[in-house]
C-alpha cells in the first residue's frame, strides 16, 4: 500500500533558500528520500544539478551528511564509504545513499556502478533521471528520449534511451525500482523499503526539469504524472527477482484504462517541438511494446527467466 500524503513524515532535511531552479523535481523527491532515511544517512553525489542544490561552500542546503565526489565515481565512492564505515565499526549508524543524475549513472558512471552492483555493495543508489546533462546546459545523455532536442541534438535525438534499471536487474541485485519525482509517496515508500534491504539497491527516478525540457515550472508534477499515464515512465519494483507494477502504473494495468497517447505528452514540452508524425509514431510503438512487456511480467509471464539471474544467494 502506498503511504498517504498525510502520513508522510513532517521532518524536512531540505532547507529553503537553496540554489535549485524554481520547480525542480529533485527537491520534491529529495525531501522524501531524506525523510525515508530519517536523516540517518550519508549521501554521496557527483558533479550534477544536485551538487548545486546542495549549496556552495561554506553553507549547505541539505541537513544530512553529504560527500561530493568526481563525476564517474559515485558508486565507487559509496562502496568506499560503506567499507570505511564497516572498518571503523560505524556501519549501523547510517545508510549510504549514492545519488546521481542520468549521465552520472548511465554514461560516465556506469562502470563504477556495474562494478559495485556485481560486488553487491551495501548501499542505495538512486538515479534522478532528468533525461540530459542539465547542469551543463542540456546536452544529450544516453538516457535522453528519442525526439528530444538538446544542445548536442539540435534536430532531436535519434536513439531511444538505454534502460538502466534492466541493466541493473541483470546484475542480480536484491532490489530494483522505478519511480517518479511526481509521486512523492511512491518515492518515500521505495526508499523506505530499500532501507530495510542489505546489498545494492537501485532506484531509478524520472525527474521533470522545467528549464531543460521546456515547460512552465508549475507543470513539474503534472507532466511527471502524465509521463506515467502514457506508459513512457513505468512505476515498478523488482524485489528478489520478482517483478511487480506499483502505484499509478499498477492501477493503469489493472483497470485496463487506455493510456494517454504519447503525442499529448510530447506536445507539452518545447524540447519535442517539431517532431515529425513518424517519429512520434515510433516513440508510441516503442512505449506500447515496453508497456505490454511490463504488464506481462507483472502477470508473471517472464518472471521465471529473470529470477534465475540472481546470483548473490551464492555469497
Amino acid at each position, binding site marked *: 500500500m502506498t503511504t498517504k500524503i498525510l502520513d508522510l513524515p513532517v521532518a524536512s532535511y531540505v532547507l529553503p533558500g537553496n540554489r535549485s531552479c524554481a520547480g525542480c523535481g529533485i527537491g520534491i523527491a529529495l525531501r522524501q528520500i531524506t525523510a525515508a532515511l530519517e536523516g540517518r544517512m550519508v549521501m554521496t553525489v557527483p558533479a550534477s544539478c544536485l551538487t548545486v542544490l546542495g549549496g556552495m561552500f561554506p553553507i549547505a542546503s541539505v541537513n544530512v551528511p553529504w560527500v561530493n565526489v568526481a563525476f564517474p565515481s559515485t558508486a565507487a565512492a559509496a562502496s568506499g564509504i560503506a567499507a570505511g564505515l564497516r572498518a571503523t565499526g560505524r556501519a549501523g549508524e547510517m545508510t549510504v545513499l549514492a545519488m546521481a543524475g542520468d549521465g552520472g549513472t548511465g554514461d560516465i558512471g556506469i562502470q563504477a556502478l556495474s562494478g559495485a552492483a556485481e*560486488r553487491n555493495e551495501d548501499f542505495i543508489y538512486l538515479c534522478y533521471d532528468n533525461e540530459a546533462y542539465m547542469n551543463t546546459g542540456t546536452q544529450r545523455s544516453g538516457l535522453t528520449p528519442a525526439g528530444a532536442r538538446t544542445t548536442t541534438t539540435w534536430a532531436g535525438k535519434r536513439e531511444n534511451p538505454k534502460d538502466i534499471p534492466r541493466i541493473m536487474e541483470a546484475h542480480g541485485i536484491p532490489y530494483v525500482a522505478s519511480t517518479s519525482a511526481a509521486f512523492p509517496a511512491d518515492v518515500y515508500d521505495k526508499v523506505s523499503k530499500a532501507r530495510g534491504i542489505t546489498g545494492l539497491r537501485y532506484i531509478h527516478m524520472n525527474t521533470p526539469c522545467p528549464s531543460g525540457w521546456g515547460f512552465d515550472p508549475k507543470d513539474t508534477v503534472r507532466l511527471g504524472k502524465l509521463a506515467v499515464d502514457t506508459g513512457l515512465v513505468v512505476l515498478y519494483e523488482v524485489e528478489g527477482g520478482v517483478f511487480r507494477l506499483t502505484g499509478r502504473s499498477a492501477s493503469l494495468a489493472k483497470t485496463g484504462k487506455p493510456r494517454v497517447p504519447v503525442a499529448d505528452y510530447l506536445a507539452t514540452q518545447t524540447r519535442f517541438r517539431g517532431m515529425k508524425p513518424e517519429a512520434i509514431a515510433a516513440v508510441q510503438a516503442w512505449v506500447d511494446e515496453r508497456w505490454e512487456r511490463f504488464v506481462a511480467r507483472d502477470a508473471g509471464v517472464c518472471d521465471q527467466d529473470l529470477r534465475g539471474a540472481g546470483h548473490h544467494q551464492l555469497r
Partner: protein
Amino acid sequence: MSDQVSVMTGNEAAANAARLARVQVIAAYPITPQSPVVEQLAAWVESGELPAEFVAVESEHSAMTVCIGASTVGARTFTATSSNGLAYMTEQVWWAPGARLPIVMCVVNRAMAAPWNVLNDQQDSMSVRDAGWVQLFCRDNQEILDTTVQAYRIAERLHVPVMVCYDGFLLSHTMMPVAVPTPEQIDAFLPPFTEPFTVVDPGDPHNIGPVVMAEPRADETGATRGGYMEIRALHHRALLDALAIIPETDAEYASAVGRSWGGLTWEHLLDAAEVVLVAAGSLGTQLTVTAEQLRSEGIKAGVLGIRAYRPFPVEALRDKLAGRRLALVFDKALSYGYEGPICSDLRGAMLGSDGAPAVFGAVCGLGGRDVSPEDLAEAARRALTDLDAGARTRETDWINLHLEG
C-alpha cells in the same frame, strides 16, 4: 622481540608495510608489476591475518575512489598501482590531496604506453608530481617497507596523501633481505588515525567537498571563509610543512625501529666530491657503485639521492651542492620537448644560490632499457669532458640510445 630478516621482493615488502600499518580498507585493481602487492594483501585478508576490508574494484579510478570514500569516513586506506593504472586514476589522484585525505599509495614505477611496455622507468609518478601528494622514492626493498610505514605517519600528520614510489621489476620483483619490524614496534611508532578533517555524522551533518567560489564567502555565522585559492594555499603550505615532517618522521622511526633513511635526501661519498651524481630510486643505489669506480680513477664523485621529490627539498639540495663543480642528474623520465623533470627542478633550485654547480641532465632506462654502473660512469666522464671544455649548459645526454641502429 626484534626484527626478523626474510628474503622478499619489493612488492612483498610493501604488502608487509600495509599489514603492519593495520590498514582498514584496501582497494586495488591488477596491473603489472604492482599486482603481487594486493594479491598478498588479499590473501592475508581472506585468512583473517589482516582484519581489513578488501574491495576488489573494477578499475584504478574506482580503487582511488574507494580509498577516498573510506578515508573520508576516517578509515586508514591503501592502494597500489603502476603506469597506465595511475594515469587512469588521475582524476582521483587530484581529488585525494585536494580533499586532504591521508591515503597511502605505492606506485610501482613503470613506463607509460604507447607503445606497450611493462618495464621500469619513472614517467608514471612524475606525470602526477603536481597533484599535491608527497612523493617519496625508495632505493631498495628495506626502504620500501620502512617508507610505506612512515608514509602513514606523514600523511596523517599533514592530512596529505603520500605516494611511495619504487622501481618496477628492479625492486618490485627482485628478492633481497628485508628486516620486518614487529607489530609492537610499529604500533609504538604509528598511532591509529583519529583526527580526519572530514566529519561524517548524522548528528552533526556536514557537506564535504562542495563547490567553492573564487572569492571568500561568509558562512552561516557571518564569518568569512576562504575561496578556492585560500584552500589551495593551505594545501601548498602543508606540502611545505612536509619538508620538516618527513625528516622528523624518519628520526622517530629510527628510534622506534632502528633504521633511518635520511629524510629528504641521502648521500654517498659526498665529502669533497666535485661531481655529484643525482637520482631518485634504485638508480641511486647503482650510482653508489659508479661513484666508487670514479673515485678509484681519481675523479672526486659522490651521490646525492632524492628521497622526497615532492615537496622538492630545495634548501637541502642547495646546501649539499654548494661549492661542487657539477651536478649530473639522471632521470628515468622526460618532459617531452624539454628534459628530465628532476634535472629541471634541480636547475631551478640552484639558480641564484651561492656556489651553485653546473647542472647537466642525462636520461636513461626508459621502458626498462638496461643501464649498468659502468654506463653511468661513462656518462659522468662525458659530462666532465664537456665541463672541462667550458660548457655550463648542455643538451640532455641519452644513455645507451641506439638511434643509428
